[in-house]
């Protein structure tokens, strides 16, 4: 089944979520370039890994459920994994930055 013949009730919210997720992620990554201190930059990618990834994964769940004709929720696993793991890396990096370049 192709992406073009998905019923409209799933296609419209999924398209909106995908556009939102894409914009949030690109703004988050843009922050890596536009902010001028590491301590400010560490906050930017969190946008992409929380709400950006969340939007995309909800859209993915919606679409694969519509395609399979039954609830397919295994994308929940990735969402949960990203939500639990990305703070761990951020915290370790924060500690590393404070240890390496104390201000």
């Amino acid at each position, binding site marked *: 089944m192709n992406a073009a013949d998905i019923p409209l009730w799933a296609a419209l919210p999924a398209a909106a979520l995908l556009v939102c997720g894409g914009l*949030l992620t690109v*703004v*988050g990554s*843009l*922050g890596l370039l*536009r*902010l*001028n*201190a590491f*301590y*400010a930059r*560490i*906050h*930017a990618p*969190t*946008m992409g890994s*929380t*709400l950006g990834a969340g939007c995309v994964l909800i859209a993915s769940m919606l679409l694969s459920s519509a395609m399979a004709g039954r609830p*397919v*929720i*295994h994308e*929940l*696993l990735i969402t949960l994994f990203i*939500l*639990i793991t*990305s*703070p*761990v890396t*951020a*915290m370790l990096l*924060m*500690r590393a930055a*404070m240890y390496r370049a104390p201000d």
Partner: protein
Amino acid sequence: MKRRPLIPVLPVFLLAMWLLLNDSASPGHIVLGIVFALLITAAVARLRPLPAWPRRLHVAVGLIAHVLVDIVRSNLAVGRIILGASRRQPTIGFVKIPLDMRDPHGLAMLAVIITGTPGTVWAGHDAENNVLTLHVLDLKDEAAWVRTVKQRYERPLMDIFE
């Protein structure tokens, strides 16, 4: 004295993970999942002798709703800061927050919640004085951050874990 919860949390969670991963609920997968869940629980019990017994799960529902709302709100705030960064760079800063919570699981959850919300990162915890150091992207009002963390996150976590 803490009392045991009615359902064993970790094996049930692992079983749910296994069924999600295989995307099926056939009897064979359920049996295999139960076996794996019990084996992993037994193996992990030696690594981590301090079990977490979360209670009052209705408080957790409210906390999760609060956190989701805060994630959406601070995403928009951080996005606005990044897009306006050519005019004005944000004022970064550290905030020290004295905590009342001592439970390690509660503190771990607090760390994940704070760091998972854009705009704030957990930057350290002094175990002796129980003081949390928080790094904030756009620091305007220190007292507001102390109030937010203590009332919005710490109180429900203390209800759940202590």
